[in-house]
């Protein structure tokens, strides 16, 4: 058994020695393999991670479901939307700056001759 293993190892060694000895075959093999490995690495780094995720739904806590349900019913109620919009408008009216003071013309002194 040991002799068989030793024979196999020596055969493998001989193969690699031949392989490294012939530089044309060595580079012709190493370059495409290197490129493929590089593409795989870049794919893993920059690829769309969503594809790698399992499509298993995460269990949602009960309280969050209830909140979502309440929000949905609120969105369905047109009066709540209207009241929200009216509140936003109220804020905008309060913020109205009719004189546009921050944009008032800069003070420029044109009398510069001496």
């Amino acid at each position: 058994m040991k002799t068989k293993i030793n024979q196999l190892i020596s055969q493998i060694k001989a193969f690699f020695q031949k392989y490294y000895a012939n530089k044309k075959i060595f580079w012709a093999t190493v370059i495409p393999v290197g490129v493929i490995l590089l593409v795989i690495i870049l794919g893993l780094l920059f690829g769309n991670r969503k594809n790698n995720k399992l499509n298993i739904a995460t269990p949602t806590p009960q309280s969050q479901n209830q909140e979502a349900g309440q929000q949905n019913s609120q969105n369905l109620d047109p009066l709540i939307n209207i009241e929200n919009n009216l509140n936003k408008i109220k804020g905008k009216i309060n913020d109205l700056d009719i004189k546009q003071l921050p944009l008032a013309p800069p003070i420029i002194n044109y009398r510069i001759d001496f």
Partner: protein
Amino acid sequence: METLRSAKPPCGGSIPPPASMIKHFLLSLLISVKAFDFSQAYQDYQYTLETYSNSFNYYQTARDSYLKNPTLTLKEEARKMTLEMLKNRDELMRVYLTAIKLRAEADVLNSRLDSEAIWYSNHKSNYQNGDTLTELFSKSNESENRYKIDTLPLIYYSLSYISYGDEVGLRKSQEEIYNNLKTIINEKVSAGKLDINPFNRWFSDIENIVQNLKSNESKAQSEMEKMFDETRSSPIGVYNTSLIPLTNSVILLTKLNNFLTEVSASIRNQQ
């Protein structure tokens, strides 16, 4: 710098992998080249205003020094400071007009504000490093005339227009809400869920306010149109007059908003 050095990832967090860092860097680059908006334009204006103010102070100091002691060296120093200040002044006007344009976001103003900003940009490039003081004063007069005759009326017209546009926008939003409320009321009345009283009377009160708002908008608009009339008093005078109806409208807009809120609450209470 100290805070940057002491910055550490939060507890339990891991150092981001190189891919995330590259993505973050690319995203930052994308954000930095996003569209130039009013907020950025206003920051530019503030910065340019400060630059102009500083250069005006240097100019004043150099001029006073020369007037006290009129040597050739001090005259040359005053000339250099005058040149720098005048270039900054044109740049200030260009940046200011751009900020107004981005705040107004109005097609009617865009081309006029653009061409005005271009005038200052071109005029700034007319200043030469070798210009004498007399040449600088002459070129400064060109800017002054442009400012008084063309730029100032356009600035005040634009400022009025911004406020006018803000109010028209709010009134239209309120009208849209009013129409939605009317639709809800009519549907519920048809379904027998709501009584048309007192909503039918409230409608006329609301419509009166809308009419008054529109009337104020027309008054403001007709005043604003006088801005480019050669017989007008002064741009600031026209501007102040155009703001009177717009100022009166603020009370009406608040009133209308309160009425609409009341209508909405009444629908809810009657249901």
